[in-house]
């Protein structure tokens, strides 16, 4: 009984600590949200107030009139299509690296080369990517922002580690039943990797949604711009339009939050699964 009481107390303390940490994490978002309704005269007024004293939604109206939904639409296309391709490529590549590791001798060496690539910061590759995009005739084309970044070692790594935890006998049984390699991958292995798929979907969506440098370099028509480029345009040479930045930021994080809320229960499982050594 004494042990049970101690356990309850521990749970209670951990819960309180967790809630405090969560509050600490979410507080900037709450501040951002309320500030987006403050008129500019209140934004930097001292003493600071969390709640707007004279709520004003004109910044939201302004950013919508500036074409925010066009930019959101472009970002959604970039994020959704980019994520679908990333997940597809990562799953197939991870499958090959895991399942053929005993059949093809150099598979692990290929994987080592992939891992070496993670040592190079993505931003360093931007110049090379931009040059390739230009030469391919994809300048000022949204596909020029998608194709260079659809492959991700992180995604391949996650799938490979997950598939390595699955007995090879399962694949062998599929082959004995006469299934093609693609059918085994699609019907047997891909569903088993659903937790990794969901985790990578969330990550990839966030990466593509927040992409900045490549879209900035590649896109040159205003109507093709993404939300991140649009938000930056509120920073002027003589001042910053904080109201518009706050309103646009709030609207820009809504898709990420929705995706996270819908899929969050799978994140931990996916990460844990990808770390299992086969």
């Amino acid at each position, binding site marked *: 009984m004494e042990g049970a009481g101690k356990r309850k107390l521990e749970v209670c303390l951990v819960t309180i600590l967790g809630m405090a940490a969560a509050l600490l994490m979410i507080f900037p978002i709450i501040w951002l949200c309320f500030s987006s309704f403050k008129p*500019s*005269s209140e934004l*930097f*007024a*001292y003493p600071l107030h969390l709640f707007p004293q004279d709520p004003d939604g004109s910044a939201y109206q302004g950013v919508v009139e*500036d074409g925010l939904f066009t930019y959101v639409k472009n970002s959604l296309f970039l994020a959704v299509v980019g994520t679908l391709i990333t997940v597809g490529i990562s799953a197939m590549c991870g499958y090959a690296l895991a399942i053929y590791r005993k059949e093809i001798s150099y598979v692990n060496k290929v994987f080592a080369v992939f891992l070496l690539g993670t040592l190079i*910061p*993505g*931003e*360093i590759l*931007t*110049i090379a990517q*931009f040059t390739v995009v*230009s030469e391919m005739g994809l*300048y*000022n084309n949204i596909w020029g922002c998608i194709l260079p970044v659809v492959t991700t070692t992180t995604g391949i790594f996650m799938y490979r580690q997950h598939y390595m935890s699955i007995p090879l006998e399962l694949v062998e049984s599929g082959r004995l039943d006469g299934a093609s390699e693609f059918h085994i991958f699609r019907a047997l292995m891909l569903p088993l990797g659903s937790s990794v798929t969901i985790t990578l979907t969330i990550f990839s969506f966030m990466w593509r949604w927040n992409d*900045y*440098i490549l879209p*900035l*370099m590649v896109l*040159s*028509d*205003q109507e093709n*711009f993404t939300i991140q*480029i*649009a938000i*930056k*345009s*509120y*920073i*002027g*040479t*003589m*001042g910053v*339009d904080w109201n*518009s930045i706050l309103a646009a930021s709030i609207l820009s994080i809504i898709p990420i939050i929705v995706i996270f809320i819908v899929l969050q229960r799978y994140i931990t499982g996916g990460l844990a699964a990808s770390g299992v050594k086969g």
Partner: protein
Amino acid sequence: MKKMFQKAAAGGMAVVMAMSLAACGGSSGKDGGEAAQQGGASADGPITGQTLQVMISEEPGEGDALGNALKQWSQETGNEIKQIIISHDDMRSKFPSMAKNKDMPDLVATTFLHQLYPEEFVDMSGVVDLSKFNQSALKIVGKSYSSEAITGIPDQFTTTCMFYNKDAFAAAGIEAPTVDKPWTWDQLYDNAKVIQEKGNVKYGFAADVSRARYDILMYANGGSLVEQDGDSFKVTVNSPANIATLTRFVQANNEVMPKAIWAGGTTDNPVEYFKNGDAGILLSGSWNYNTFASDISKFEFGVMPTPKGSAGQSAIIGGEALAIPANGKNVELAKQFVQWLFEPEHYAEFLQIRKEPSVMNDITYTPDTDKAKEEFAIMQNETNYVTDTFMVDENSSWRNYKDNEYRDSLKRAVSGEITPEDALNGFADALSQSSGWAKGY
């Protein structure tokens, strides 16, 4: 770390792209390229039915003077307008990438591209009559960094100026200076102390954390960063006069200014301090006027002339210019718009919306109220205080060698980390080494 890589990548990108500019651009001379001949240009009359692509640096807000002018011109001439908004910082990376892909805009509103890449832009002497413009504005805002060519015509003209809290002055029993009877810098510091004590403000005086704001103290006291030395320059930033100026500024930070701002302890913006009624006097610039007029309701503010130093008054001017890329698709159309904008009646209308000091000699902005008229007259008058020493410093393009290091040296002196003398000596050494210029002191 990620931000550092992003900055490094953007910087690297800009360098690589800038190198490619040499290969891509400038081939068509100052009057534009082949593309200019394909834009529906007609020697007999204005061009119509074309699209003018304009690159601007920020989402237009209230009082979008340029947008309004473009719209009006578009309606009058039957041409279309297509805007592309690239933030000021990103233009450095974006413009070279556009050049590499032969995707130049027809017109650019920029504070630096035309000065950094003059070979990419049309020489404006062939577009408008430059004698009609404020020559200082042309030199500072429109001139190439590497030659005498005017590659941009200022569409935005700003000057440093001083704002003050009228309520705080009244409470402290202090009368504001006038154009005819300006304060000295010593008087400003002394009065700031009184205002801080009796004016119901936390700080008597605040100044933007910008070397361009600090430098007006330096120029007023006869100092400069460099001096002309034959065909070259010599570094004079550590002159005795400059050390004395910085020493006094450090003292003022300890006594009447929000020291944490200049000492690097906070990223607070002193402009917000003034807007909140926490600072009695603000050294900033004319670009704040309209925001102050709309946002400040707790007290009445005013504009006062810059104090005198041992060498007189001083001001630093700046702004944004309209520049025409030589390899744009519609060079002639862009020229047509620039010529239209700077016709007196169009520029006068433009200026009424922009609400800024004028860049054209015979045209001034006429505010609606007497108060604003008086205050704009003071700001316009400030542009006369641009010193020869400032012009020499600008001509030297010293910022190509060292830039932020100067402000960092000033901040280290204010924080007390090093003495004013060591701060300026250290920066003089660094600038001299980078530029190859001899030291004057």
